[in-house]
């Protein structure tokens, strides 16, 4: 039984397997259900109690102790689709979402793939082939020297001479990298070997491919990305930009749309380049063209993410378009049905990524039990969460717990709304970055809209220190709460049984070798 809206579709489907976990699985499952389709979740052992399988119509267990055996296994996911009779697969982000071989295997299995063609993923996934395709298509690329350094034997001689040609500071990138993994800044020649080895290690551990390449590091640049949507009939539009300049070690922290650095003319030009980039690989579905905007107003192609982006909600808020719904429509073979002229900008939206990490100890991931988890609510506030109160936060997965998104008429009121939302977000039991997010948001540089990608890494962490509170008041609160019996009101697992190493209750033998791509 296909839903009514699919009656014109050339490849209709009635069920979707969501090959992911956490907040994005929750987000997609809800969209699938809203579209009148059956949503099938997958899960591995540590996720037995996870939110995404609670809300799904059906859940398929993926055996195996490591991600490679479950969430990262093409075979396991396709087997799960067969078992559950899923007619389509949505990969979410991370995991298998940008693996061309997986997309190909899905298509070959006769299952509808909710994403671009394997060829498009392949071309854009390899930074070197993406770069040459962009040059051919007239999309500006970052100045630098292209070189592939194969994994294996010692290539320091070749690397050093290319590095010298490109010039310092430079960026070493894993060709198959992304999300800040396998990417290293080298400021001086003597650090080249150390950083290359670290990048190669991270890249091969996270992606199974140790190739690294060299690029000139642009300083004082902003990270601007353009959302594109393309159907199977040759229609391609862009949905404005997102500004993701607030980054820490190449991981986005706060994203917003529109960007205060992008004028209408620049938006039109960047948008046209992004559409050109997408068309160059016959792109289908939702994708993101990442650009670096230099202080002189020039912009350069960085990479194209051939999947749904973590920060997609800010675009949804200002355009009113549900990107996941559009992905489903496009995959079913329907026409895009939106013209470029009809895309406007309504107000301003900001997203903050809520991480289980401790800003005070170098942003190390934290573990524990989310004894209290009370996300804010109210007009213009959206929370995309993968966890609920009482959940364990372990070392098994990426430490992102949720995304807090606000929408307001203009940037200043969006900042105020976000500040209020963050301060009423009560998350106890696991150290989060909420306080840090709030202080970053209220930093003069962010408020004035002048953040560049090196801002967080070059600003002392003490500038984001939380407000001081009198220790006497704090210990009084704790002692009084104990007297009032509040230590007995929590009826969750016994925390003394939590394994110090993994955060799992009573399970000291889990391996640490799990990685979120």
């Amino acid at each position: 039984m296909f839903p009514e809206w699919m009656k014109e579709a050339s490849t209709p489907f009635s069920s979707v397997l969501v090959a992911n976990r956490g907040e994005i699985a929750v987000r997609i499952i809800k969209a699938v259900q809203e579209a009148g389709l059956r949503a099938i979740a997958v899960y591995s052992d540590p996720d037995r109690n996870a939110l995404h399988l609670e809300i799904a119509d059906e859940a398929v267990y993926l055996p195996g102790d490591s991600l490679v055996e479950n969430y990262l296994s093409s075979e396991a996911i396709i087997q799960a689709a067969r078992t559950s009779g899923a007619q389509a697969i949505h990969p979410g982000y991370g995991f298998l979402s940008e693996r061309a071989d997986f997309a190909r295997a899905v298509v070959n299995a006769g299952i509808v793939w909710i994403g671009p063609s394997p060829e498009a993923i392949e071309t854009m996934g390899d930074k070197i082939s993406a770069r040459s395709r962009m040059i051919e298509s007239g999309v500006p690329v970052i100045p630098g020297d292209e070189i592939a350094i194969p994994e294996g034997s010692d290539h320091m001689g070749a690397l050093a001479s290319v590095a010298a040609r490109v010039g310092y500071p430079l960026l070493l990138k894993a060709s198959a990298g992304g999300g800040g993994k396998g990417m290293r800044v080298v400021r001086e020649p003597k650090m080249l070997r150390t950083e290359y080895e670290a990048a190669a290690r991270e890249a091969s551990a996270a992606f199974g491919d140790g190739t690294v390449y060299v690029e000139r590091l642009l300083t004082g640049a902003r990270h601007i990305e353009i959302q594109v949507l393309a159907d199977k009939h040759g229609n391609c539009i862009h949905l404005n930009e997102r500004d993701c300049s607030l980054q820490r070690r190449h991981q986005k922290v706060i994203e917003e749309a529109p960007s205060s650095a992008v004028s209408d003319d620049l938006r039109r030009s960047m948008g046209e380049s992004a559409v050109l980039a997408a068309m160059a690989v016959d792109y289908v579905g939702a994708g993101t063209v990442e650009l670096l905007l230099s202080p002189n107003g020039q912009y350069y192609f960085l990479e194209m993410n051939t999947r749904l982006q973590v920060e997609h909600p800010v675009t949804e808020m200002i355009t009113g378009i549900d990107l996941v719904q559009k992905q489903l429509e496009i995959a079913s073979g329907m026409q895009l049905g939106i013209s470029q002229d009809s895309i406007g900008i309504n107000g301003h939206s900001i997203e903050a990524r809520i991480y289980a990490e401790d800003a005070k100890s170098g942003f190390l991931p934290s573990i524990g039990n989310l004894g209290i988890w009370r996300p804010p609510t109210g007009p213009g506030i959206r929370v995309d969460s993968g966890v609920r109160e009482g959940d364990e936060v372990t070392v098994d997965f990426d430490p992102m717990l949720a995304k807090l998104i606000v929408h307001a008429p203009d940037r200043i009121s969006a900042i105020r709304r976000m500040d209020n939302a963050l301060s009423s977000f009560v998350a106890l039991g696991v150290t989060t970055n909420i306080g840090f997010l709030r202080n970053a948001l209220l930093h003069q540089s962010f408020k004035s809209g002048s953040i560049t990608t090196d801002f967080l890494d070059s600003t002392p962490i003490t500038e984001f220190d939380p407000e001081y509170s009198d220790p006497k008041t704090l210990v009084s609160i704790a002692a009084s709460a104990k007297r009032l019996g509040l230590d007995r009101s929590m009826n969750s697992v016994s925390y003394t049984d939590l394994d110090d190493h993994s955060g799992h209750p009573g399970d000291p033998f889990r391996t640490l070798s799990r990685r979120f791509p």
Partner: protein
Amino acid sequence: MEWEIPDSDEKFSVDLTEREGMVTTTSVSINGIINDVSEIRISKAGDDSRIILETDRGTRFAHVAKIGDKWWIHLEGEVYTVNEVEKGSKSSDRSAGGLSAPMPGTILEVMVKEGQRVREGQPLMTMEAMKMEHRILAPKSGEVTSINFNQGDRVDMGATLVELGD
């Protein structure tokens, strides 16, 4: 019962009086020395983690919960933790005296030898935890007096990795 605040050596003890569900702090001692406190009154707001806090700055709501061995407090948009310790017990600060693993993980590389002199900020070890590499940097200049783990070793959070002398 004594109380500790993270990153502080001070030990607090608190004297309370309770009347009709309202707990009033009468004094707070820091390292055994009694400090004057302006009145702090706390009562439950419902059967949840929510409390009402009355001080000379007015009435505020806060959330308090004991999770693990810590008390977690959400007060005016910020989160604080307070440790509850048995009177006279050793400090729960495990990082004292050496360089401890900031989180559980695996040692990837040891960059220094015992007896070697290091500068402040010099990388001593690389460890892998979750999905990233973390460098353990020397917090001060000095001599490496002991290296407690080798490449490939798995370490628990708080384990002392390297010891530095002057």
